[in-house]
């Protein structure tokens, strides 16, 4: 099992400034999954790999986005997965960058941060342990940072991981584009004071409705006429004069909407993905109300064209209310 690659300047920026802070907020411990074509950071993908009933978060990069001189080999069809502490990974990366900068080199073409899997015998230990090692060569010095990782996943575990990953890629039939991510994040921060359970409704007309309801108060927000991907329908004219709640009820009766209840903490945690600076966000509800899916889009810099080499999405578990 071998893995060795050089980090690109863009990759360092993407990880350091955007994705690692975001992923760290979602959960400190994650799975890092390397394949011949992709590098992935996975949260809560499956209970077998330390995941519980929390937010699933999947960030995927095509290998050339963050690496160059990429070499990987393993008996699991050249796939390697291990558990890593994102905060430690981020610390090692930042440290490597600072060494390059302090040495007079900028984060530019001369960037030389090599990342590789190693096994080392720590002082006082009987057995060698696995590490993800960062080797930084500045002008005057070379520094090695070893980030401890779990023992890489076994062949059956990697196969199970891959199938869990494939299953997580199911896209809801209807997705609506969130109008203003900052406003939404701010709203959810405020709604957290009101209650712990959030009802999320999405219609084929392009409506997104969030509301918290307790015995004393109902607070909600409705966004209408949003961009719809997938199955869409025209809103009936009579819709205009209804209250947000009755609009959703009518849409559900017509089979044009779905409602799920999610944990407010899960939603707030997922919204940390905004730290990765996505250009657009789409929300959808999986068939049978299985989960709430958030898909974040990234554009190729300077264009409005989607960058297929980076993807990020979250799946929020739906609370069993008995009415799903």
């Amino acid at each position, binding site marked *: 099992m071998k893995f060795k690659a050089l980090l690109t300047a863009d990759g360092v920026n993407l990880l350091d400034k955007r994705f690692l802070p975001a992923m760290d907020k979602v959960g400190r411990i994650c799975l890092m999954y390397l394949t011949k074509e992709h590098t992935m950071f996975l949260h809560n993908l499956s209970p077998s790999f330390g995941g519980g009933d929390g937010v699933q978060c999947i960030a995927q990069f095509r290998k050339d986005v963050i690496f160059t001189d990429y070499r990987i080999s393993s008996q699991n069809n050249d796939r390697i997965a291990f558990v890593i502490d994102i905060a430690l990974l981020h610390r090692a990366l930042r440290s490597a960058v600072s060494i390059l900068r302090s040495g007079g080199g900028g984060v530019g073409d001369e960037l030389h941060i090599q990342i590789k899997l190693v096994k080392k015998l720590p002082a006082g230990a009987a057995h060698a342990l696995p590490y993800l090692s960062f080797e930084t060569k500045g002008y005057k010095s070379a520094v090695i940072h070893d980030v401890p990782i779990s023992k890489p996943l076994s062949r059956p575990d990697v196969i199970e991981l891959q199938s869990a990953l494939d299953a997580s890629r199911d896209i809801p039939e209807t997705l609506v584009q969130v109008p203003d991510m900052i406003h939404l994040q*701010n709203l959810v921060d405020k709604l957290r004071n009101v209650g712990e359970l959030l009802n999320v409704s999405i219609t084929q007309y392009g409506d997104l409705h969030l509301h918290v309801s307790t015995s004393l108060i109902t607070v909600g927000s409705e966004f209408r006429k949003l961009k719809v991907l997938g199955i869409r329908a025209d809103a009936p004219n009579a819709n205009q004069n209804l209250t947000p709640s009755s609009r959703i009820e009518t849409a559900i009766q017509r089979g044009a909407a779905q409602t799920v209840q999610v944990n407010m903490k899960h939603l707030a945690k997922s919204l940390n993905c905004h730290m990765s600076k996505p250009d657009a966000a789409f929300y959808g509800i999986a068939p049978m109300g299985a989960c709430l899916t958030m898909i974040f889009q990234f554009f190729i810099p300077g264009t409005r064209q989607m960058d297929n080499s980076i993807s990020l999405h979250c799946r929020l578990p739906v609370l069993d209310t008995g009415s799903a």
Partner: protein
Amino acid sequence: MAAMAADDNDKPDLVCHLDSVQGMVDALTSVRWKKHQDAVMELSEHGIVLIVEESGCLQAKVYLKRELFVLYDYSAEGRPRFGVSLGLLVDSLNTFSSPGYTPVIEIQYPGPDMQLLLKSVDSPYACTYAEIRTRIPDTISWDYNFETTGNVPPRFTLKSALLKEAIDDLEWPGSSVEIILKPDPPSVTFRSEGHGDLEIEFPYYGSTELLIGFHCGHLVSHRYKYKFLGAATKHIPSSVLKDNRGSKFTIGRGGMLKIQHLVSVGRIVRNQHFFGDPVTSGNQQPSSRIAYIEFYVKPEEEED
């Protein structure tokens, strides 16, 4: 005619529009001294009054005059009163405000189920709303009628920032604070004894910029529980401190203390014109859009 009469009956007691949610949040937060706190709201043609009470010894009132609202459509007869959770009201008002965005919100009472309804009305395609359950208000157990002694009661006005700092400092010595007004030389002293002694004196002629107004014909001294004075100053909004406003203390019959703060409820920049009724809109100058906050603190009973 019958249809018109029916329409009139359906008309809520109050529909008003507010363009400064943050100002209202500030004003209401200043009387929120604990997380779960019940309040009574009283509506009238002059505006809205929110009343909060604690242990029969402290009462606070927030006066939101009709001029603070860009629209104030009052249709009730008499003065409707209802109980509401202050915490929920503040938290739900907070959901409307976000940095860089000042929505116009509509406040309506009652809703179909006697709720207090709030909703944003400035965008056809995005709406935030809240429905807050109300209850039959508690009877006020103790009447806080503030009666003055003589024509001009003892009073003084301190800069709010200074007052807050002084009351914060008085926390450590003990559970009660004596307020002493001396006419000659004119000065105000806050004195607290307990684990230690702390006395903070504001001589009138020493710092006229801090002690702004002072009137006292004879020596006046009363003790108040620290927790009530603390409640009256703990949540003075930062806008009051920034505006360099003063807080006015007046001592009434029996030592009843009235503390008044002024909170700006005006928008700093009016970048849009709302389609509200110009007659009821009132003066839109931010400086005149002030919410009055009053605390009434009962003195500690004298030991014989």
